[in-house]
């Protein structure tokens, strides 16, 4: 029972973070029909900025509450980067063949990876004692880090908030209209450029938030961006590209499968994930919730 | 003897019954025109027969064989070919290459990767011949993306024609042409077809010789509003049937 509780919660934790990253990727694709190969790096930027901010604050003796408030710093940093990138590097490519889009975002991937190295150095960056300061809670006889529960909560809140935002607000309606028919939306007076930059910024915020909340539990390391990108990709393959429900479902599936793999067969954990992705690709190429 | 028979062929897109239980027969050797206003279902019917779409129900029999479940590749190999309403060409290749590819494919030579394409004189001569038939031999060396729209439409047909199919569908070969010019083209359709099939809202409205169709009131009222002697009819400034 203890085993199930701990691993179940771990899986939820992993799913939370994955949902944020993959959800951002899917949102951007859904609205703009582009895949940013550097999306994982925005997750990494979120992680590094938060780790650095919190680390610095903790060293300055700031109390727990302040550290918590500073947590989303990474998300905002990622959003800012996204807001700068979209009009400068991505917009020139919307009218060009997709290969060029892939090439430019791949170049961006390389640039960001090295920029992170330049700014924060090659060593892992930890967020200090935030994790430990949260303490642990006893659930069904097992001691479990309270911080992890907070992360799960953030994931659920983010999912709910996003859902409400997209399906219940006027902005969400405009977003969905633009994603379904950009030309029509434009003809109806929607400022598509503004929608694009907003959607992109939100997507980057989500990725950055994923990095921000994960970093107290594990240090920010170089290469985490590419690993995250690939995992996010597995999530959207399974769940369907462009669908928020898909990102949610896919994140849950990947989170639980990975946790099962880690607990039972550590060496082949990655292989099992790819196997599932491959099966889904064969059976339902558009993913569980995707539109073909 | 019938070359192609469809039975109760149907295809819907959501609420829209694009093709509504159509029984359509094409006989060996006949030249047939399928006409109808926009949205009548002509292109969908062609898409179903050529394999671009899967039918919701019904069957397609070509040369006594049921091809309803066959992929478009298999149907091409069986001898069905089509041109496209929205021109579909290999834009970065020359006009000659475009036609030659059909011939290479027809001859089953496209898997050869150890011989030079330029050495197969028979293919290139045939390709040149096809271009000449379509009046495009002056553009042989020019890339398909660089010729005029009208020439592209011709090339699109030439590429399908070069497959020497048993059944060739020309999808809207005159679209993109001005309204004023449409009537004379309709006149040609009526003059050269042995048989005309009229579609309307997914079903076959009428099927007969050009004379029979001309005299069919239902057709003229629901469909064109064009007197098929070649003069467009603008009654009270309206286009009937649109």
């Amino acid at each position, binding site marked *: 029972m203890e085993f199930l509780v701990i691993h179940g919660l771990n899986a939820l934790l992993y799913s939370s973070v994955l949902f944020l990253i993959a959800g951002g990727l899917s949102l951007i694709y859904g609205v703009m029909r582009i*895949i940013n190969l550097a999306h994982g790096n925005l997750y990494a930027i979120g992680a590094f900025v938060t780790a650095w901010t919190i680390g610095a604050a903790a060293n300055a003796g700031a109390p727990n509450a302040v550290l918590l408030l500073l947590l989303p710093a990474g998300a905002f940093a990622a959003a800012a980067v996204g807001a700068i990138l979209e009009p400068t590097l991505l917009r020139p490519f919307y009218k060009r063949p997709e290969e060029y889009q892939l090439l430019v975002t791949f170049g961006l991937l390389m640039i960001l990876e090295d920029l992170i190295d330049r700014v924060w150095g090659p060593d892992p960056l930890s967020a200090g004692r935030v994790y430990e300061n949260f303490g642990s809670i006893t659930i069904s006889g097992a001691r479990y880090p309270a911080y992890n529960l907070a992360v799960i909560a953030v994931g659920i809140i983010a999912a709910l908030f996003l859902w409400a935002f997209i399906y219940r607000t006027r902005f969400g309606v405009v977003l969905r209209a633009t994603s379904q028919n950009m030309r029509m939306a434009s003809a109806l007076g929607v400022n598509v450029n503004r929608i694009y930059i907003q959607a992109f910024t939100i997507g980057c915020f989500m990725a950055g938030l994923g990095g921000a909340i994960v970093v107290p539990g594990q240090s920010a390391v170089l290469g985490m961006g590419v690993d995250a990108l690939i995992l996010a990709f597995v999530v959207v393959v399974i769940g369907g590209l462009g669908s928020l429900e898909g990102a949610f479902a896919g994140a849950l599936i990947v989170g639980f499968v990975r946790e099962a793999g880690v607990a039972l067969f550590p060496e082949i954990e990655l292989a099992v994930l*790819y196997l599932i992705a491959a099966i889904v690709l064969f059976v339902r190429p558009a993913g569980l919730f995707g539109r073909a | 003897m019938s070359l192609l028979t469809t039975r109760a062929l149907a295809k819907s897109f959501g609420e829209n019954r694009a093709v509504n239980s159509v029984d359509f027969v094409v006989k060996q050797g006949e030249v047939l025109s399928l006409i109808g206003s926009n949205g009548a279902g002509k292109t969908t019917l062609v898409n179903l027969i050529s394999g671009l779409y899967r039918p919701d129900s019904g069957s397609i029999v070509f040369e006594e064989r049921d091809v309803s479940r066959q992929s478009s590749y298999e149907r091409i190999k069986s001898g069905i070919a089509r041109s496209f309403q929205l021109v579909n060409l290999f*834009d970065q290749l020359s006009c000659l290459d475009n036609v030659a*590819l059909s011939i290479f494919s027809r001859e089953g030579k496209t898997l050869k990767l150890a011989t030079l394409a330029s050495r197969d004189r028979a293919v290139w001569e045939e390709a040149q011949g096809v271009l000449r038939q379509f009046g495009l031999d002056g553009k042989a060396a020019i890339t398909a993306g660089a010729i005029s729209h009208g020439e592209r439409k011709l090339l699109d047909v030439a590429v399908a024609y070069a497959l020497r199919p048993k059944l060739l569908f020309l999808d809207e070969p005159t679209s993109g042409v001005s309204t004023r010019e449409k009537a004379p083209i309709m006149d040609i359709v009526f003059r050269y077809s042995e048989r005309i099939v009229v579609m309307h809202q997914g079903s076959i409205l009428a099927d007969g010789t050009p004379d029979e169709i001309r005299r069919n009131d239902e057709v003229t009222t629901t469909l064109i509003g064009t007197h098929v002697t070649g003069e467009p009819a603008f009654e009270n400034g309206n286009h009937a049937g649109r």
Partner: protein
Amino acid sequence: MSADLTMQKHRSLLLTLVWAAPVAVALLAAPHVVGPFHTLTLMYGLVFGIAVLGFNLLLGYTGLLSFGHSAYFGAGAYTVAFMVKYFKVASMELFLAGSVLISVIISLLFGVVCVRYTKIFFGILTLALSQVLWSLAFKFFWVTGGTDGLRVPTPSLLGTAPLADKMEFLAFQYYYYVLAVFTVCVIVMWVIVHSPFGKALQAIRDNETRAEFIGIRIRRYRLIAFVVSGAFAGVAGALWAPLNGLATPDVLVWTFSGEIVFMAVLGGFNSFIGPIVGAMAFTYLKTYAVGFTVYWQLLLGTVLVVLVLALPKGIMGMVELLVAKVRRPR
């Protein structure tokens, strides 16, 4: 064919000879004219040239952008290392045969999954699959030597044992061997690209729907192109291993795939020799730039972005523009 076209063909053949002949002479004379350092750099350029030539069959001719070509290059390199370590083989010919076999198998396996998709999905799938291979090289470090890698000693060429002086061997005997294999690869690729199959690939690139409607089985052709492309990368990897002396996971990681992509874009992926030009240029650039900065990725990424923004046809594109200007000085 009309007289016009035949004349055009003769003219372009002549023009090709104008630049190809001096290049060939230079390549043949190199070891005797320049020192071993430059000869070695040249060899790396030739080896990567083979890999990028294969890569471009997919990109330039079939319209598929692969971000995971390091997998097949690395497979080639590690096959050589394994053959040395576990089978005590030392013959370069056997190395080449083994590498082609393994890279064909792996590209077949990966290709079957990847060619069902295009563009974005294809790109990320190739990236993901190559990362799997990379992580395997790490995880099973007792087999692959992990980050330390596996040693690859100098091989025997055509049955003759290598010279005792490694440098001399590499800069002379091995150089001509690599040059010979390179020449064969270029000829083979040239034939493939100008074959009916090559034309069919270009048709698929230009218009998938139409290609299908003239009777071409898209997936099958893409898969064949994928496997041929992988085989070329495998050959390159095999030639690279003795040159480098060591097979490490660096040759499987995504950043190396990125370099392959970069080389193609730099040289110009719309032309036949663009990839080779790109590989040569890049190899020289890297040799000198790595001395200047440790932020190699940053430089590469920036240049890639600039290339795609301003000069998408790469070096060969620029050359074509210049040639056109010279021909028609209006």
